[in-house]
C-alpha cells in the first residue's frame, strides 16, 4: 500500500504557510522564544523582519506579548516546543489568551515521545490534556505536514485561540496528492478533489464496519497499517483521522459507535485527557460501546530514536490491532 511514501516533518509547515498567508495580506505577526529554526517560524522572520519579534528564552513573556499584539488586532502566532509553550507558561496561556479569548495561535512542535533522543524533558505527552482543559482553545493535531499547513491556514483565518501540535521527525505524508493512496470511497470517486482540513470534521481514511480506530498525529499512519493487518484476518476496520480535537466530530463518533460497535483510540500522548478521553466522554454520554485506548500509560518517555520509541511504548500497528480484536470481543452478542 505504501509505495516509497514521501516523508516530511509536520513542524516544517508553519513558517512557509505564514509567509504565504502574510503575502496574501493577512495581518500576521510572530513571536518567538529562541526556537524559530526548529519550529520553522524563522522562515517568516526572514521574509517579514518587522513582524517577527524575538523574545529570547522567555515563554511566559512571549505569550503575554502575543496577547497584547492580538488585542491590537493582529493575528498573533507564537511557537515553541510543546513542553515550553504551553507547558512552561500555562498560567500565561490561561490568563492572557484563553480567558479573554484573544486571537493567538500557539503552534507547538515536538509533541509526543516521537521527539526522540532529547528524552523525557523534551517530550510533551500532557499537552493535549492541558489544552483541552481550556474552554476557548481549539485544538488541532495534524496527521502530517500537508494537514499541518491547512490547519495553520484555518487557524489564521478563524478568530480566537488555537493550539496546533506538530512533531519533530519526518513521518510519512498521509495526504500526498501524488500518491492518493487513502481516502473514503467518495473521496476516491471525487477525482481531483484534494483533502481539505475542516474544523470539527474527522476524515474517513478507510471505511469499515467491524471496529473503528480513531487516531491523531503520528498514530494515523499506525492506524492505517493496523487496519491492513486486521484486513488479512477478515476484520473490516474503519479509520478516522481525528485531527480536530476541539471542535471534535461528534457525529463521526456516534456513527462509528452505531455502525461498528467498537472503538479504539490511538495517540502519542497520555491515555488520559487527550483524544481517548474526549471520545470516551461522547461515547459514554451518547452511544456506549466497548472502547480501548492506545497511548502512553501513566509514564514519561525516554531517550531513543523516534521509531524505536514508538515500538518501545507500544504505539504500534500491532498494538492497535490487538486492541481492536480485544474491543470486538467485548461487543455485546
Amino acid at each position, binding site marked *: 500500500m505504501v509505495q516509497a511514501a514521501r516523508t516530511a516533518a509536520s513542524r516544517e509547515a508553519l513558517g512557509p504557510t505564514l509567509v504565504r498567508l502574510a503575502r496574501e495580506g493577512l495581518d500576521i505577526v510572530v513571536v518567538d522564544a529562541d526556537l524559530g529554526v526548529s519550529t520553522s517560524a524563522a522562515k517568516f522572520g526572514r521574509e517579514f523582519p518587522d513582524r517577527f519579534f524575538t523574545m529570547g528564552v522567555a515563554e*511566559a*513573556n512571549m505569550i503575554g*506579548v502575543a*496577547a*497584547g499584539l492580538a488585542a491590537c488586532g493582529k493575528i*498573533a502566532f507564537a511557537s515553541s516546543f510543546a513542553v515550553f509553550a504551553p507547558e512552561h507558561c500555562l498560567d500565561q496561556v490561561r490568563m492572557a489568551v484563553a*480567558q*479573554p479569548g484573544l486571537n493567538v495561535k500557539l503552534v507547538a512542535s515536538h509533541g509526543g515521545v516521537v521527539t526522540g533522543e532529547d528524552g523525557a524533558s523534551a517530550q510533551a505527552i500532557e499537552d493535549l490534556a492541558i489544552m483541552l482543559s481550556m474552554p476557548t482553545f481549539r485544538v488541532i493535531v495534524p496527521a502530517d505536514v500537508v494537514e499541518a499547513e491547512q490547519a495553520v491556514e484555518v487557524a489564521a483565518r478563524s478568530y480566537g485561540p488555537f493550539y496546533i501540535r506538530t512533531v519533530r521527525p519526518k513521518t510519512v505524508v498521509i495526504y500526498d496528492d501524488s500518491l492518493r493512496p487513502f481516502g473514503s470511497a467518495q473521496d476516491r470517486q471525487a477525482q481531483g478533489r484534494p483533502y481539505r482540513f475542516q474544523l470539527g470534521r474527522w476524515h474517513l481514511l478507510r471505511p469499515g464496519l467491524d471496529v473503528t480506530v480513531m487516531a491523531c498525529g503520528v498514530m494515523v499512519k499506525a492506524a492505517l497499517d493496523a487496519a491492513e493487518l486486521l484486513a488479512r484476518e477478515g476484520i473490516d476496520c474503519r479509520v478516522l483521522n481525528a485531527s480536530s480535537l476541539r471542535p471534535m466530530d461528534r457525529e463521526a463518533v456516534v456513527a462509528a459507535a452505531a455502525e461498528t460497535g467498537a472503538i479504539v483510540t490511538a495517540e502519542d500522548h497520555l491515555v488520559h485527557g487527550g483524544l481517548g478521553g474526549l471520545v470516551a466522554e461522547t461515547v459514554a454520554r451518547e452511544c456506549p460501546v466497548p472502547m480501548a485506548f492506545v497511548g502512553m500509560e501513566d509514564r514519561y518517555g525516554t531517550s531513543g530514536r523516534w521509531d524505536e520509541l514508538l515500538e518501545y511504548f507500544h504505539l504500534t500497528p500491532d498494538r492497535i490491532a490487538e486492541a481492536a480484536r480485544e474491543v470486538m470481543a467485548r461487543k455485546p452478542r
Partner: protein
Amino acid sequence: MAPTETVSIEQLEAIARRIRRHIVRMTTAAQSGHPGGSLSCADILTALYFRVLRHDPQNPRWPDRDRLIVSKGHATPAVYAALAEAGYFPTDELRTFRRLGSRLQGHTVMNVPPGVEMSAGALGMGLSFSLGQALAGRLDGRDYHVYCLMSDGDCEEGQTWEAAMACAHHQADNLTAIIDRNHIQNDGFSDYLRYQDGNRPQRPGGWVREDLHTVNIMSLEPFADKWRAFGWRAWQVDGHDFAALIAALEEAKAHKGQPTVVIAETTKGKGVSLMENNPTFHGKAPTPEQAEQALRELAD
C-alpha cells in the same frame, strides 16, 4: 480625545477622594476585595484618566487611544471607580461589585466593562501584554502610548523581568511602566522600608510576626537600579503628589530610545488611617463601622 481643559490639582484631589470613597463603599458592600492596594493607586489612576491619558470614554475601542494596562488586577475597586468617574459607565453600577451577574468582577476581565484593557489577577502578566500593544502600535504607525500599572508583587514575578528585558531589547519608548510601590503585599511587608518596629532587628529573609504577617517577604531594592540595569529610564516620585507624578509621566512619555518606568512611592491604604501601612487590608474588606470612620476621613 485629550481633555479639553486642564483639570487642576485641586480638582484631581477631589476626584481621588471620590474614588477612595467608592473603594471603601464597594469593598464594604461586597465584604471582600482589596482596599489597601486600591487606595494606594487611586492618585495614580486619577492622574492618568484625568490628565495624562488620551482617551474617550464614549469610544473605549478607539484605536488611537492611549492604553492603560492594569497588571495588578486585584485593584478592581480603584479601576472601576476611576472608569466610572471618568464616564465609562454610571457610578451607580459600582454597587454591584463582585455580585453574581455584575460586570464588575473580583479581578479585571478584558473589555468588561469597556475600558478595561486586559484580564488580570495572576500577577506579573501586564508588562508583557503592554509590550505587545506597544509593538503593535509601532508596527501600525500609531502614536498612542502604553502605560502599565504594576505592584510590588508584580515585580517579584519572573515574567516581569523577562518583559523588562524584552521592552528594552525592542526599544519600546512608547511604553511607560508605573509601579505602585506601597511596600506591602498579601502576607505582609515586602521589605523594611515601611516596617516600623525598633524592637525587632532587621534580618535577611522573611520572618513571621505574632499576627502571622510576614516581614521582609522579598526586597526589591535597589529597585530603580534594577530597572536601569535592564535598560530602562527610571524616575522615582511621591505617588500621592499629583504635580510630581504628572511631571514624571510627561517626561517619561517624551523620552525616546528606551522604555520608561515611574516608580511611585505610595502608602498602602492611603487616606484611611486604620488602613495605612496595614497589611490586614490588602485583601480584606472593612467592617461597616470601620467604613463609616473611613468615609468620615475621606469626606470633602
